[in-house]
């Protein structure tokens, strides 16, 4: 059912570059960036097998990795759509109309915040954090790229231009 996850040579190289930033006995420090690397390689989420593989690779216990994976909101432990949309709706963006932007996207993609589209093309992340682009509000990130000073028309263009992998 769930085949073992192997950290191949390419991934191993990326992770060992992370490990090198820290003292040799502090490999646990590499957990967060390694999870981001592995998640990127695995359609945007990490599985228990990935956590197991990273645990073996860094010699850090699985539970220590799991609690990091569940604490940080950018790491997903469940499958999500291939393209991640995060609409900032903290105060600065809210004052500039982010709520309308968000409901427009919900209507357009026929999903609610926190859900992925049926075809798995988009995941509308429940973004509660401020994305630090307050003077470009309303703004969103699509696959971590910023789009600022949004209008409904701009949002349509941006979403239609997303080339699916």
């Amino acid at each position, binding site marked *: 059912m769930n085949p073992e996850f192997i950290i191949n040579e390419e991934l191993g190289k990326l992770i060992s570059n992370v490990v090198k930033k820290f003292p040799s006995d502090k490999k646990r420090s590499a957990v967060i960036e390694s999870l981001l690397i592995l998640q990127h390689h695995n359609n945007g989420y990490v599985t228990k097998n990935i956590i197991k593989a990273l645990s073996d690779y860094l010699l850090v216990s699985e539970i220590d990795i799991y609690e990091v994976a569940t604490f940080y909101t*950018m790491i997903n432990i469940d499958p999500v759509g291939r393209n991640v949309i995060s609409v900032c709706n903290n105060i*600065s963006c*809210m004052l*500039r109309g982010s709520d309308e932007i968000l409901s427009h996207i919900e209507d357009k993609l026929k999903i609610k915040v926190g859900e992925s589209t049926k075809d798995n093309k988009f995941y509308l992340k429940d973004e509660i954090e401020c994305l630090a*682009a307050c003077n470009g509000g309303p703004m969103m990130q699509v*696959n971590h*790229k910023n789009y600022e000073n949004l209008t409904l028309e701009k949002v349509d263009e941006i979403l239609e231009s997303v080339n699916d992998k």
Partner: protein
Amino acid sequence: MINKLCTETFGLKNPDSLKTYLDKQGYQAWKNIITEQTPKSKIIEKIKESGLRGKGGAGFLTGLKWSFIPLMDGQKYLVCNSDESEPGTCKDRDILRYNPHSIIEGMLIASYAIGASVAYNYLRGEFMDEQWKVFNHALSEAYNAKLIGKNILSSNTTIDIHALIGAGAYIVGEETAMLESIEGKRGMPRIKPPFPAIKGLYGKPTIINNTETLASIPKIMLNEPGWYKSLGVNDTEGMKIFSMSGHINNPGNFEIALGTPFSELLNLAGGMWNEKNIKAVIPGGSSVPVVKGDIMMQVNMDYDSIAEAGSMLGSGGVIVMDESTCMVSVLQRISRFYYAESCGQCTPCREGTGWLYKILTNIILGKGTQNDLHQLERIATQIEGHCICALGDAAAMPVRSFLKNFWSEFEYYVDKKESMVS
């Protein structure tokens, strides 16, 4: 003359390149220190004398912080806090992408002064597409120019700088939570004391400074003593970047003299959007108390003047709200944020932020009572000062100040089950 500390390269062609920075006397302060082998104490003394205060939110004196580091030999660390996430604040993101070398030079000088051979710059995860790439590129340029690394500029000094990336957690901006995160753990703040200067990253003496603070260091070192102080106006000292957002015509980052009247800053930001009247301002990021617009128009943008108006300069994230703003909705949005971002370690914050958000949501849904308003005040009081870190206070302060300044608007919402302004 307009002086610029951190924003000098903004708007230039290839602002992030080493060449652009060198053309602006970049790395000159660092080269002077290395060639002259300036004594560490002399650098700390100069920063102390400059009166530079931390620009991330707390406003602690930077030179004093550095002087807490023990003099004995042994591994020490410097950490640059680029986990910018205080709502309303977006200044560090621009320094990271438009003037990354000023951060690197500031980190080198700070590391040298405190005796750290390794420094980390921790960027928030959401910066991975732009700032992360730009900063890493700047790092490799500086390594190639032998400004960082082993035997810097053929001296005996060795300092390595690494960029680290977060993965989405506001609390990691708290300095001890950041240390936990660098150690590969959940970002839960540590009990202080011991302070990081004594026992920080991996238990070693560590100084954590904000991005803007470190980016200010090179210019201060390059100029005469007293220069930085002289930049302030109206009896105050120094400069600060203010992120202007909300109901204004020209949102943006403005690096200005501390002490500049708020009304001037508002003009720089193009004045009020749609020519509406100003209702309220959050002057230092969403954690600080809200100030009524007419009072704010009399305030100067410095620590003391904003404190006299009942708030704080904080991170410099200035959120401007016009007369059409529903203060109940704004407070509910703020409370949702702190509820979601509480790390869950201390009971008053974990439970209290949830109650604040739920009660405010009930009010918005038209199910609130007058007693709820007093309950909000009680809960805020019970959180404030009762937790390991300042997140609980950050959740409580807006609640108390919104209620105090706009009580009738909250009462109206409870009675009529709708907003006073809509």
